[in-house]
């Protein structure tokens, strides 16, 4: 008999008819709030989104697709995908490791680590880009030695490597990793904290090794949260402008990502191409949102049974 009672308590205010009259709002309040919310959404989200596609298609579908024939645009799309393909797995590994440490163990400086993980959220992306410029730029701390052979001890070695970081792909990837740092970890920490250590202890008592425990117990438990974090991380990695803009050097066809290419095309009076590339970014965002909703839905489905 306890079953129905808990399920009722677990789903408050879902169905209007079942809720007590005192906590139900009058009809006009609901209508006003809904209208305001929808109008706001329409003006600030849907209208600009529609404008992007309208502007991209202003000169017809032919011109729209012609925009993607530009080799610079190809290279921008490729670079954006490459950057995300490196930054997201890197942050996936880091995020899981950090969340594992923080949620499952107690140690000194734990809250400091949590604060540091949040740092990229707190600083402006421009600063994130400048940090790498200050370290690896030719006038920076390490930059003068990279590829110049001027270092007192490793000069010859540096000279042979010809390492390029700023104004090249490694710098763009580094800046993107920095900016997207917190997404996975932030998603997992609360989830793992609520789940506690009980299942892991059980697995260990039954003789599982550390890796087995991770793959068979921890990972399945955090699966959906992890996907969710990865998707958000990916969306930001592909859309990042500020940090990448500082570090890119804007070499056309080499170090421009899609967001930078949009700006370049727009400044070249080529608004159809600019909005065409922007529409591709918007489409990527929409796919991300659909995936995100799907995962939320799956998560909601699996949680009660777990």
């Amino acid at each position, binding site marked *: 008999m306890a079953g129905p009672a808990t399920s009722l308590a677990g789903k408050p205010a879902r169905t209007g008819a079942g809720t007590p009259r005192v906590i139900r709002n009058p009809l006009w309040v609901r209508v006003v709030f809904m209208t305001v919310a929808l109008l706001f959404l329409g003006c600030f989200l849907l209208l600009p989104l529609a404008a992007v596609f309208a502007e991209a298609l202003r000169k017809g579908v032919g011109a729209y697709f012609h925009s993607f024939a530009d080799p610079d645009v190809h290279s921008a799309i490729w670079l954006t995908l*490459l950057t995300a*393909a*490196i930054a997201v*797995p*890197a942050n996936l*590994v880091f995020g899981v490791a950090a969340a594992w440490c923080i949620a499952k163990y107690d140690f000194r400086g734990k809250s400091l680590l949590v604060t540091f993980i949040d740092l990229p959220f707190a600083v402006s992306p421009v600063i994130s880009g400048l940090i790498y*410029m200050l370290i*690896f*730029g*030719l*006038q*920076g701390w390490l*930059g003068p030695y*990279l*590829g110049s052979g001027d270092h007192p001890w490793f000069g010859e070695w540096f000279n042979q490597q*010809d390492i*390029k970081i*700023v*104004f*090249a*792909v*490694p710098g763009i*990837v580094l800046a993107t990793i920095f900016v997207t740092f917190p997404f996975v970890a932030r998603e997992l920490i609360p989830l793992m904290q609520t789940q506690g250590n009980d299942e892991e202890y059980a697995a260990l008592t039954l003789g599982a090794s550390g890796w087995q425990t991770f793959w068979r117990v921890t990972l399945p438990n955090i699966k959906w949260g992890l996907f969710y974090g990865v998707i958000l991380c990916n969306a930001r990695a592909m859309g990042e402008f500020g940090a990448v803009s500082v570090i890119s*050097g*804007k*070499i*056309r*066809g*080499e170090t421009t990502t899609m967001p930078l290419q949009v700006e*370049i095309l*727009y*400044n*070249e*009076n080529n*608004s159809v191409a600019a909005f065409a590339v922007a529409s591709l970014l918007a489409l990527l965002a929409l796919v991300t949102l659909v995936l995100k909703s799907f995962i939320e839905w799956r998560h909601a489905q699996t949680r009660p049974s777990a």
Partner: protein
Amino acid sequence: MKFKVLLSFLVAAALAAAASAKSITLLNVSYDPTRELYVDFNAAFAKYWKAKTGDDVTIKQSHGGSGAQARAINDGLQADVATLALAADVDALFNVGKLVPQDWQKRLPNNSAPYTSTIVFLVRKGNPKGIKDWDDLVKPGVTIVTPNPKTSGGARWNYLAAWGYALKKYGSDDKAKEFIAKLYKNVPVLDSGARGSTTTFVQREIGDVAISWENEAFLALKEYGADKFAIVVPSLSILAEPTVSVVDKVVKKKGTEEVAKAYLDYLYSDEGQEIAARNFYRPRNAAVQAKYAKVFPQLELITIDEAFGGWAKAQKTHFADGGVFDQIYLK
């Protein structure tokens, strides 16, 4: 297992990045409005170089505010050639990074400026505020669009043209400073580069007048239609000399010295001059000048050397930290 896959992927990506960096191409780091000029010129030079040596040369372009671009080269942007808006920005490559020799400007004819331009006004259709000369810009109620002199080369030419006019008309530096202060009071937004300013004026429709490179103004007319905007030529302006230089330290490392030098020399060739003129830059070559005489209006032009004692001095007096621009704009 998955970690191994991930690791090998990271290594492969790093190798790919390193491999693409070694391919022999030239990088031309330039200022904002030269995008179209160098798209044309690069195609012509690649053809010329192929015919001459049989080698394929690809020239990559990077554009931004001239000062910002100089800063990027100093920070390590691997530019084979720098084609910037003014000599002071190439000087910075010597002063900060020692990337070019001190006498870089003497290596090519005409102070290393293969084409010139000047500063004019771009106004809206029918010139509703009746702007004819610099005096009309300081009137109350006129809004001006000009980029930030700290980051943009064009903006510094704009500033100095206005200063030159005021100095000549009112006779003293103090009066000129007053004039400039009034002028910048009418500027609602300072973009970081000349192209950003053009976009602000043309597409975002901010301002009554844009102080602009002549070539950029012509380009705006061409792109957006001569029926929407008009060019107003002031009574006096400045001879703007965008300068070019090979970045010695980079070409020595990359082994591209020969082709980079040929690239800049080709700017002085008949075809290079013709391409410059077609893109609304004033050519140096007398024959090409004569051919395009109708395009470029004649006006009184002061030069940076005569009116300001050279770029080094102008830069220090007007645009350095705490210089005249800071004094009038921060107030």
